[in-house]
């Protein structure tokens, strides 16, 4: 067997350019499978990680048609009293312009309460978070997202300074830690205000959504049911005005989308593997007819059909697996380069790498069998006479 592999390698090496061109199909196929799948899995993993960081016991309530059927702050206590609920953080949001001197920035504003810090698991990198006092007294205090802080204050410390939001002056009491970006949106380009202050600023007395922290991960679904039933009482039996989602639902949605994408991209790349296989078959057929004389000689001195079949089959397998190996190397390094240049997260999946390599090997076997069979079935006399 090792003799056969040695022979196959020898015959491939003796025709380097042709071997390389033949392997090119395999190389492109395998490397594109690896690159495409690792990029799409990398971004999906990044998104699920970000969502997962928020805590799996988090529920989000969104309200629609907030004009006709509004959820007021006083209704919060109803939710808070549910046994399965630990903490709630109401949120109003909008977009505002923040200014520090001449520097200004368009950011999204989130009005919320002190509980937001626990519920959304956010941390301040300097300064402090809101207290209930800030909210009750409607103190014009603001917490900046890390990007907003850098935009407005550069490297200097913004704590204690004041910023202009839509023309009114607010005192900066804290800066949030960076939370990274998700789905192309930066989570750091924000300003947090006490909810009552934000409602006045946005001229809106309703609550657009509520983050709910369940007691623990096991009661998330129970909490969801509880919330849905108590809200539907509040909204007069209708469930159309709100939706309750948990983080797992979001993760599932994102990963199902990205899985579909992975499969599609992988499928397209597999087609190029098959095309590469046809290339191998083509070259092996040429090689068989070029080496008719050799086949004749080998048969005359006693090679069995099986010997000839194996010789050519192993040659095509060596070709395709060489191509596969180069493809794996190329795919991994190109994906790494891409991630370094673009800053996109990639995730190599070992099963996918093994699978694409195995597939290239299988292609070698599948498309190698026919030429090898053709070679092994040659009549020795005709083959010997061939010049």
């Amino acid at each position: 067997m090792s003799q056969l592999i040695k022979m196959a390698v020898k015959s491939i090496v003796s025709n380097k350019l042709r071997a390389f061109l033949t392997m090119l199909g395999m190389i492109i196929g395998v490397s594109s499978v690896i690159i495409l799948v690792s990029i799409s899995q990398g971004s999906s993993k990044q998104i699920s990680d970000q969502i997962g960081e928020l805590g799996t016991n988090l529920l989000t309530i969104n309200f629609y048609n907030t004009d006709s059927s509004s959820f007021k702050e006083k209704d919060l206590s109803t939710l808070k009293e549910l046994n399965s609920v630990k903490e709630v953080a109401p949120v109003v949001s909008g977009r505002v312009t923040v200014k520090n001197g001449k520097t200004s920035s368009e950011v999204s504003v989130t009005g919320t309460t002190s509980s937001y810090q626990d519920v959304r698991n956010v941390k301040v990198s300097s300064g402090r978070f809101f207290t209930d006092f800030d909210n009750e007294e409607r103190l014009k205090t603001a917490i900046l997202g890390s990007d907003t802080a850098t935009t407005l204050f550069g490297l200097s410390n913004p704590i204690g300074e004041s910023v202009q939001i839509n023309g009114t002056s607010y005192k900066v009491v804290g800066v949030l830690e960076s939370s990274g970006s998700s789905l192309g949106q930066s989570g750091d380009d924000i300003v947090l205000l006490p909810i009552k202050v934000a409602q006045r600023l946005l001229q809106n007395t309703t609550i657009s959504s509520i983050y709910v922290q369940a007691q623990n991960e096991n009661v998330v679904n129970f909490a969801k049911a509880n919330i849905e039933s108590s809200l539907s009482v509040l909204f007069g039996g209708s469930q159309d005005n709100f939706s309750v989602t948990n983080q797992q639902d979001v993760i599932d949605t994102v990963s199902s989308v990205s899985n579909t994408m992975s499969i599609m991209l992988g499928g397209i790349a597999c087609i190029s593997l098959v095309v590469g296989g046809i290339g191998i078959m083509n070259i092996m057929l040429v090689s068989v007819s070029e080496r008719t004389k050799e086949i004749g000689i080998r048969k005359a001195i006693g090679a069995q059909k099986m010997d000839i079949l194996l010789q050519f089959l192993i040659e095509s397998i060596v070709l395709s697996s060489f191509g596969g190996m180069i493809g794996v190397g190329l795919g991994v390094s190109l994906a790494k380069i891409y991630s370094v240049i673009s800053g996109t997260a990639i995730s190599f999946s070992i099963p996918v790498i093994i699978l694409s390599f195995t597939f290239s090997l299988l292609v070698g076997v599948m498309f190698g069998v026919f030429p090898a069979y053709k070679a092994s079935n040659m009549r020795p006399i005709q083959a010997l006479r061939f010049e």
Partner: protein
Amino acid sequence: MESNLIQITDMNRYYEFGGETLQVLKNVSITINKGDFVAIVGPSGSGKSTFMNMIGCLDQPDSGSYLFDGEAIEEMNDRELALIRNQKIGFIFQNFNLLTKLSALENVELPLSYRGLSQKNRTNMAIQVLREVGLEERMHHLPSQLSGGQQQRVAIARALAGRPDILLADEPTGALDQKTGREILDLMKKLHKEGHTIILITHDDKIAKEASRIVRIEDGCLSEEGGIPLGNVTINQNGSKKYS
């Protein structure tokens, strides 16, 4: 007592050429004994090559029987024929037919590798026969780095490597100049003296004279020079042919 190595009786072979059936071998019979040096002489188109293919187990007869060392070749399948070729027959071709990408040593090893011998055994046996043909020094050369005579010696070494029962040489000097041709013939005579059975196929009477037995083939029929019977069945169906 001499033993029959090859016994061919009433062998016929037909070929189809453009819808026409051509009888290439006509009731051919011959017996070849161990230790014989037989020359088979005939002009081109006489059925010489077909006959050689038959003896070499590269082809099978349409009718008649062929006993090789007591085994009926005409009943064998491809696998068994390949085994006979590998173990009992050593081929020497006009154009040497060495594999150009393999070294002299690897070429000689090839029939042994199809026997499933270990690498070590193969190399030892191959080096030994290369020494016998006087090419031990050049065993790592490629055929393209050897002269015609040297290439033919490698081919003879390859044929000898498996210690076959017969050496079947098809115009072994045809592609060589007179001097090297002479050397190859001398080598074959030496091998004959050492006890090898040799069948030499040629169109050249002068070369045929080197052999101890000369058999003529003409138009698909055999005739033995010197009046010695070809076997237990004579070719009396073609009685008009003379042992000339």
